[in-house]
């Protein structure tokens, strides 16, 4: 069975500037595979190539080299795009149409049969919690309402692949919860979701797998837990009743030492674990916990960006 999205050595170069044209490498040989029915997170700083990847998947731009397939089809084929629902970052629907009219237009464009139009539109409008507000012209909507109606237009074609670019940015708690609920519900139906967000707790909570994209390349891919664990080569020890004099003996072997009232928490390289344990046992200290250090996805993200030499939040282009 073909993957929902598969890219192979996908590259995109933009020419910018006038009169002297400068080349900007937005993507450099990106390999990515989003399976059916999974929520796949794209993480990366500004200008990393996330939006470029999405645009290539939707045929909004064409690759300079490499390929991208949607359910085995080229995105330039309407059949491929018929299976996609897309919510862009900061969506701007036609402002003089009402919410219902805009979602109806989207339904017509994805080929919903005319007999089903009304019921399908009502269904998604209710799902995103717009209710009677959908009868108002979009220019009267708040940011949250625009986000909701744009999500409705993405869902109205019952897509097999949902692409969401920063779906929760700028939303209040209820709006974020609604979007999260919709994503989980869609996954239950077997829809693949490509989820692109700067809000790392959302990515951590929702995604089955995550790709870290930096400088137009896929730096790391895996489940959130595997990424966090694979990156950790440090060990954390919690020691009970250690006297202050022990600190000096430990310092040469540990990376971090924190004294918390009765307990001491030390972090050391995995290779130094035995040495540290030996020092502790010789001093009759009681080790109450020994575990591999766990990073959050956010820590991992910042570390990966720093390693790549790109400033966090900087733009390449």
């Amino acid at each position, binding site marked *: 069975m073909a993957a929902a999205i598969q890219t192979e050595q996908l590259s995109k170069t*933009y020419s910018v500037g006038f009169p002297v044209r400068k080349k900007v490498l937005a993507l450099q040989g990106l390999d990515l595979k989003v399976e059916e029915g999974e929520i796949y997170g794209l993480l990366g700083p500004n200008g990393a190539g996330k939006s470029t990847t999405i*645009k290539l998947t*939707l*045929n*909004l*731009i*064409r690759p300079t080299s490499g390929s991208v397939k949607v359910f085995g089809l080229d995105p330039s084929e*309407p*059949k491929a*795009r*018929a299976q*996609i629902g*897309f919510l*862009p970052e*900061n*969506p*701007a*629907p*036609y402002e*003089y*149409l009402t919410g219902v*009219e805009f979602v109806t*237009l*989207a339904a*017509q*464009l*994805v*080929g919903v049969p005319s007999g089903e139009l009304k019921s399908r539109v009502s269904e998604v409008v209710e799902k995103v919690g717009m209710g009677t507000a959908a009868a108002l*012209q979009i220019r009267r909507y708040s940011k949250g309402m625009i986000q909701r109606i*744009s999500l409705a*237009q993405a869902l109205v*074609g019952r897509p097999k692949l949902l692409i969401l670019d920063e779906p929760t940015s700028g939303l209040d708690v209820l709006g974020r919860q609604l979007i999260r609920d919709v994503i989980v519900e869609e996954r239950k139906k077997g829809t693949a979701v490509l989820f692109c967000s700067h809000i790392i707790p959302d990515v951590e909570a929702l995604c089955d797998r995550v790709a870290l994209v930096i400088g137009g390349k896929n730096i790391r891919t895996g489940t959130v837990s595997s990424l966090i664990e694979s990156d950790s080569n440090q060990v954390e020890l919690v020691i009970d009743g250690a006297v202050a004099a022990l600190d000096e003996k430990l310092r040469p072997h540990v990376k971090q030492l924190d004294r918390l009232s009765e307990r001491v928490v030390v972090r050391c390289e995995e290779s130094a674990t035995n040495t540290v344990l030996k020092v502790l046992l010789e001093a009759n200290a009681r080790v109450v916990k020994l575990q591999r250090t766990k990073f959050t996805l956010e820590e991992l993200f910042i570390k990966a960006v720093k390693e790549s030499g790109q400033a966090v939040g900087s733009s390449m282009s």
Partner: protein
Amino acid sequence: MSAFNGMLALAVNGFRESRRNRVTVVVYLFAAILIFAATFALEMTVGTFERVMTDLGLGVISIITVVLTIFLGSGLIPREIERRTIFMIVSKPVARSSFVVGRLLGNLLTSFFVLVIMAVLLIGQMVVEGTPIRESLVVALIGIALEVLVLSCVSFAFAAGSSQFVSAVCCSGLYFLGHLSTDLYKFADRAKSPVLGFLGKVAYYVLPNLDRLDFKGRATYADPTPWSELGGSVVYAIGYSVVMIVIATAVFERRDFK
């Protein structure tokens, strides 16, 4: 989904959007100008009221529809790209050519709607004043409709690959040049330099010949236009428009939406 259904949905919604946007205001403005002009003309003219009314009415209709057509045609695609509305439309299973034609049809519906409203107002005003409605007036209105068709397609051809400003400037330039095309041909014919002569003739054939679609002068003097001449103008306008649509879709097909 058939390409036709997609185009139709885009056209209908484009028309709906424009109608709510600014078109009504333009129509009301025209009505006010027309009523004022009629009163003014009655006061100022002796015996030539029909001529002044026809001339003034057609002139205002022509100016308003041309400005509206260039404004709508030049701004629609660039604005959608700038606001990124286009991301949600072109990513659907609709061909880019269907998008261009659908949006163009929506624009044409809007311009024709305004034209019809203004024509009805003018004819209504003439009926109220007891001025006869002649065939030449109808022919002149058809000519304005053909001009709207050509200018819409020209503005889309420019807008498909450039900004709103560039498109509006180029389209306005072509409008004026298009009305000078007969003079351009005469100039090319009389030019001493063969290069200038050749370039002038090339420009004559490339630029839209809007003089061919302008029957306002004849309407003013109630001169009839042979139907064969009008038929030729219809064929010319449609042919030129088709070429412009082909250029617009070809440019739009190749465009990257960054």
